């Protein structure tokens, strides 16, 4: 089990301390979790850690990471992660980003993908593909919470979290994550208008994996996202919503392994 030990470290980048978890051994895999950080406790990450060193940074304001005021979105966070790659001396990195983490991953790759060998975006946000009155990304903040859960999960029971079982420290992380997600995703809503124009810069082989029934960003959005990244491939995981890695982990891992080895 030693390969699966969850090593919590902190890394200082440009004066900001980020929490960085390192798990397993092997080639580096930078795992950029979704806004709820549900991936941290998911079994598929342990499976990845059996053949990769999985490196999981918490973005500013998430987990235990600091959040200075000047960080206003994934565009800024991406520079921090380039610093992280450099500081840890990583090369030949596989980057896998989920949802909000997928948005950050795309931003990183548009800026400098020389240390990245494979890029995987899973049900990612980040671009606006339609016109001003098209709702490309479901508005999770103006919708009734029950509708958001139904859009996110094929089986909404899987999305239930029992906050009564969490201590104050854990709840503080949940509350910080919710707040920081709004800080970075409120306006423009869940996208960076410039990212769409920068995606052509990505030369790294890229796979997009999408939950077939994702009601937050649907597969049409995912396909349009993919068309903006030259040579990318698009794979659908049946029976899953916004989190295929959690709802259909076997099908998800099968697609992922085919691509990253």
């Amino acid at each position, binding site marked *: 089990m030693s390969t699966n030990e969850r090593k919590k470290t902190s890394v200082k980048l440009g004066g900001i301390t980020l929490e960085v978890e390192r798990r397993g051994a092997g080639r580096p895999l930078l795992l950029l979790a979704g806004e709820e950080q549900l991936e941290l406790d998911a079994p598929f990450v342990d499976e990845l850690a059996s053949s990769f060193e999985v490196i999981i940074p918490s973005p500013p304001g998430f987990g235990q990471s600091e959040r200075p*005021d000047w960080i206003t979105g994934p565009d800024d966070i991406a520079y921090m992660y380039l610093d992280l790659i450099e500081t840890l001396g990583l090369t030949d990195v596989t980057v896998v980003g989920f949802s909000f983490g997928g948005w950050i991953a795309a931003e990183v790759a548009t800026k400098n993908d020389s240390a990245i060998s494979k890029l995987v975006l899973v049900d990612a946000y980040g671009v606006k593909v339609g016109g001003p009155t098209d709702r490309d990304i479901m508005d999770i*903040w*103006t*919708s*009734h*919470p029950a509708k958001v859960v139904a859009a996110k999960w094929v089986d909404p029971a899987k999305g239930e979290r029992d*906050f*009564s079982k*969490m201590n*104050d420290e854990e*709840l*503080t992380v*949940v*509350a*910080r994550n*919710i*707040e*920081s*997600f*709004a*800080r970075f995703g*409120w*306006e423009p809503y869940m996208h960076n208008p410039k990212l769409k124009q920068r995606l052509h810069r990505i030369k790294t082989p890229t796979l997009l994996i999408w939950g077939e029934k994702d009601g937050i960003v649907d597969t049409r959005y995912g396909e349009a996202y993919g068309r903006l990244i030259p040579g990318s491939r698009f794979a659908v995981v049946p029976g899953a919503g916004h989190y295929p890695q959690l709802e259909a982990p076997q099908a998800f891992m099968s697609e992922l392994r085919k691509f990253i080895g």
Partner: protein
Amino acid sequence: MEAWHFTEMPYPNLPPLDSLSTMRVSLSNTHFDPKIGADLYNRYLDEYMIADDVGLNLLCNEHHQTATCIDVAAPLTAAILARQTSKGRICILGNPIANRGDPLRIAEEMAMIDCISRGRLDVGFVRGVPYEIFAANTNPTTTVERLWEGIDLVVKAWAPTDEPFNFEGRFTQRRAINLWPRPYQTPHPGIWITGSSDLENIKRAAGRGFVFATFLQPHEKVKWMFDGYRSAYRDTGLPGGGGTAYMPLVYTADTEAEAEKGAQELTWYLNAKAEPQYRNPPGYVPVEFNVNALKGTFTGRTDAMRKKSMEFLKEEGVMVYGTPDSVAKQIKRLYDLVGGFDHLLMMQQAGWLDHKRTVSSMSLFAKEVYPQIRDLARTKPLESRAAAE
């Protein structure tokens, strides 16, 4: 003590409230009939003019995308009243400076209204209730910082300047600020600010000589906030000179039975519904509050007051109603319970309360209650040493 007439300018002509999931943010605007709207606007403005005639001051505010308040631009109301009234002070409580996003435009509007009214304006600033976030699409995690950066810029812009100055802050960047007109009052109109829990905010207001106002809170909590204010307050000599303001629902009538009926109409405001996602946008309150929200022990301010009995609300000082002597007695009791306050902000109209009864209540108040409370002593610092710091 100064007394103020207030209405949110509600639009009550809705389907049965039980049939609506929300009255705020997303209630279809097909429910708004412009002809009814025209009648309501003119009626509410008439009531402000009558309030001015009978000797009350005039308080207005604004909200957006809601049937609870169709005053969507308080500066417009204040401008009309500046021109059409002659006696009472006019207070906007307040300008949602974080949500409007252009502090200098607000500074200009306030200066112009202050000139038109010949110095009768008090300028309130509010962060805005949670629902307002959605209409303005302001990032809910930065509204406090936006509020304070904006206020400080307005105050600086109102001051005489020999040449344009620049301001390159976190939220506003301008390079040649030179406000025309300047406000009528020197150095500027009194400034008011609202709050409901953030003690640091309250102390910051006190330290700057701003009036601190709070609405519809149980008297124990009002005292806690006013004590916080008084502990940090010093009279800076600004117009208005700082102080405290409290708003209950108020209805005055010749008999207790009539008063109770009128007050019952006012509870329409307390029952205004909103869907859950609008009540606590992410990051609107600090992380510690949201930890409690996750535990289910924090549900938001307005929810706490909803569905309480009128007797309970009267006991708490959230509602004040009765015959003139009873109303005066309730206000004096409240005054004692909270350690004194300077401005009684009266929501004297809400929901379906009609013109006749609204005017009857405010006239009776002005004639028979106001003289009994007018001379109550004004806010004094709680600890002179803290105030001097």
